[in-house]
């Protein structure tokens, strides 16, 4: 096998013919079905819960049944079950177990809960006390305070919730046999779950086993959230000493699992002679009631600033608020879709103000190799933004598009970076990935990694890297769904790190294995992550190289806005991507298209509002995501820009493809309507309001 070979997905057939087994498809004879009892209020205390009597077949599992009532994520502020204090609507109070699902529901319908209710906080502006703020960061470059400017151009940008809406709902099965706790389920991060279980159950390492099952999409939605479910189910399985299954129903999944953080970004540009001297940016997000991954999301949102542009004087501040809204969390892009929408829309509005073409305007500020990023780290790699802009102009026939633009049509562009892997020194300081390659006596090569296939193509891409390096047929590769009894911790399946970081380690392991392939014995090669020397980061001051390497995208969107209904039709979308070197072009194409669909939803369809902590859009019918007919005609291409540390030159790809889409669409709608649009998603009713102004 050669890295340039065109191959089919290694896990394709069973997913097409329906034989792939997702968690809900696993048949169990004797099992307790669990449902979650949840709070009906956003803030207050549970005074009492009256469970019906005479249900001997029903078992209640609550905070008394867990060794340590904390879900270890980054911190431990979230309880597995709240004993009393309620902080959001839908907060878990207990699990109700029964062998007959109908009996469970009958039982639950009779439960009476008495609360003492407090006034909740539902808006970032209402967060006035110190305890309402999870975290605050600030970093600076140059000196924003002593600029001699003519004018300040200031705008405020907002974004709403977005739901991952993976097609397979959250689900898990737990058992406790022979003193081994086993959790199987739909997940991104087997070791996050394992570590959370060690913390919550007090069981030693070797008695906890986490196995991923075929995962029907995740997009960040199965990054931290499943740790909560696993701890709850562990308590249940250890109590009843039998298998317990918890499968969410769709409404429950939408209403109670993590969402993309709502945000507000205020950008002040200091201008002199039509030039941007400096930017002062405040980026704020609503984390909900528990910290979860909010700090890290906030950091990525901040550290991705100032995008593709070199701005000499910068002050960036970030704040994450604690509210009584739904718990916000990981979602493809992880804070960057929000801050990049703000920055890109700001750049468009500046271009508009100066009556310049949005691509030409941006070119003046494109960062280059050797420049300092906003966090004062040197861009070590080659940056091809100008070439990307040229390629985008050719691909989209941009001049022609402009010349032939009809009434009610709009053209918008975006340029965004996305850092691959964990922020700063995260890979070295926290993740410390390890991978193993095992050649067995039949000459099959086993990929031993905790990286999961969740649809993104990890199995195909990582198998291809190893098979190509060993020059063996891909059929000789064995890559089972990760089982923590068998695989080392190669880190979570997040942060677009799979190909670049895990693939990079596997590549090195394969190089080492290659000369040993003729040895008939079983051979295991282990590789540990080594941090590249030139990547220097100070987490305290937020200074240095915020990411290992950046991937880049350049997008043009073409929209038509109906002058009567104000409906937006995104007709065409062109994209140029720098992801280093694509390891598998078919997989990359799928990632790009999928990212476009989610970005399009984020930009102009997926409206999710919350009132008093209750999500108003809670079903497929009220929360519309793109269907085939909504998709624009997509034309995309990539430029090659090999990354030294990446396998075959590959950098990150997964998240990048989403981030630039909504900004390009928003710019196009502005162009079509002439309105200043500063809020996502842009819905027809927003345009009606603008028109009435």
């Amino acid at each position: 096998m050669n890295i340039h070979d065109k191959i089919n997905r290694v896990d394709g057939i069973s997913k097409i013919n329906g034989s792939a087994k997702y968690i809900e498809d696993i048949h169990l004879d004797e099992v307790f079905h669990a449902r979650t009892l949840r709070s009906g209020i956003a803030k207050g205390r549970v005074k009492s819960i009256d469970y019906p009597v005479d249900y001997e077949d029903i078992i209640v599992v609550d905070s008394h049944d867990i060794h340590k009532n904390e879900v270890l994520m980054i911190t431990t502020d979230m309880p597995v079950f709240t004993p009393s204090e309620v902080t959001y609507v839908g907060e878990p109070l207990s699990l109700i177990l029964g062998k007959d699902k109908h009996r469970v529901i009958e039982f639950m319908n009779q439960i009476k809960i008495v609360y003492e209710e407090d006034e909740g906080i539902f808006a970032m502006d209402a967060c006035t006390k110190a305890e309402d703020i999870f975290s605050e960061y600030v970093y600076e470059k140059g000196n924003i305070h002593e600029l001699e400017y003519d004018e300040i151009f200031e705008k405020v940008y907002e974004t709403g919730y977005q739901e991952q809406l993976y097609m397979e709902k959250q689900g898990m099965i737990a058992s406790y046999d022979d003193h081994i706790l086993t959790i199987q389920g739909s997940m991104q991060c087997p070791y996050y779950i394992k570590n959370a279980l060690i913390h919550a159950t007090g069981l030693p390492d070797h008695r906890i086993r986490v196995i991923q099952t075929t995962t029907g999409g995740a997009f960040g939605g199965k990054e931290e959230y499943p740790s909560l479910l696993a701890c709850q189910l562990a308590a249940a399985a250890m109590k009843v000493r039998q298998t317990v299954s918890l499968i969410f129903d769709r409404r429950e999944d939408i209403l109670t699992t993590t969402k993309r953080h709502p945000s507000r970004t205020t950008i002040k540009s200091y201008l002199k002679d039509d030039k941007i001297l400096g930017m002062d940016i405040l980026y704020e997000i609503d984390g909900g009631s528990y910290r979860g991954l909010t700090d890290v999301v906030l950091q990525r949102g901040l550290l991705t600033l100032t995008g593709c542009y070199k701005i000499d004087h910068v002050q960036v501040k970030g704040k994450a608020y604690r509210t009584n809204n739904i718990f916000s969390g990981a979602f493809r892009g992880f804070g960057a879709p929000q801050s990049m929408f703000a920055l890109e829309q700001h750049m468009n509005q500046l271009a508009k103000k100066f009556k310049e073409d949005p691509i030409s305007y941006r070119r003046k500020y494109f960062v280059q190799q050797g420049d300092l990023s906003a966090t004062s780290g040197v861009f070590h790699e080659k940056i091809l933004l100008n070439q990307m802009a040229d390629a985008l102009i050719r691909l989209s026939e941009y001049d022609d598009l402009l010349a032939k633009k009809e009434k009610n049509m709009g053209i918008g562009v975006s340029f965004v970076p996305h850092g691959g892997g964990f922020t700063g020194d995260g890979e070295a300081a926290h993740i410390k990935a390890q991978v193993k390659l095992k050649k067995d006596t039949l000459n099959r090569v086993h990929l031993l990694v905790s990286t999961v296939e969740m649809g993104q193509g990890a199995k195909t891409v990582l198998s291809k890297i190893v098979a190509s390096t060993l020059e063996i047929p891909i059929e000789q590769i064995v890559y089972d769904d990760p089982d923590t009894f068998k695989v080392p911790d190669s880190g979570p399946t997040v942060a677009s790190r799979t190909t670049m970081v895990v693939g990079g380690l596997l590549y090195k392991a394969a190089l080492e294995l290659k000369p040993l392939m003729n040895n008939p014995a079983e051979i295991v090669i282990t590789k540990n992550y080594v941090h590249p020397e030139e990547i220097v980061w100070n987490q305290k001051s937020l200074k240095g190289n915020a990411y290992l390497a950046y991937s880049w995208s350049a997008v043009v969107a073409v929209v038509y806005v109906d002058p009567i209904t104000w409906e937006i039709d995104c007709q065409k979308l062109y994209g140029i991507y720098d992801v280093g070197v694509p390891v598998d072009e078919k997989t990359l194409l799928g990632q790009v298209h999928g990212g476009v669909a989610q970005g399009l939803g984020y930009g102009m369809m997926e409206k999710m509002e919350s009132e008093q902590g209750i999500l108003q859009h809670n079903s497929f019918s009220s929360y519309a995501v793109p269907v085939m007919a909504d998709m624009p005609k997509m034309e995309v291409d990539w430029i090659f820009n090999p990354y030294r540390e990446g396998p075959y030159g590959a950098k990150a790809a997964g998240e990048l493809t989403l981030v630039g889409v909504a900004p390009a669409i928003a710019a196009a709608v502005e162009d079509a309507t002439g309105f200043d649009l500063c809020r996502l998603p842009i819905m027809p009713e927003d345009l009606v309001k603008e028109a009435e102004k």
Partner: protein
Amino acid sequence: MKIPFQLNGEPVVAETTYSMRLLDVVRNEFGLTGTKEGCSEGECGACLVFLDNKLVNSCMVPMSHVVGKKVETIEGFAKSERYQVIEQAFQNHGAVQCGFCIPGMIMAVENLLRTQTVFTEEIIKESMSGNICRCTGYQLIYDAIKTVIQEVVE
């Protein structure tokens, strides 16, 4: 109660109730888990099956509507020759990611082939728009369908 119907060509009897959803019966009673539950409100197409040759969202069909009828699921359809053509096209085009929506997509493609004689872009997109896929952005699925149409129809 006992409800007789035909499942993938075989006469069967389900031990269930009239109000039970067809989706639950094929999955739980007969272990045919290729039919998926995505939304359970008739909006996503993950649960599509043929009921007397008509494409239906099985999450919306109570067993009272199934008595004596013919049900075809992905497992049954996968035995046909035409399925092979569709499978190959989906594989070659890279139309599959997480796979959760795919069996439903396959049923919708088969329905398109069974019910239409002309296959314009608009007809294809319209008839596939009851199926939600959160992963692929649909383009490679569309390309796969075009290939299927070329091979089967033209």
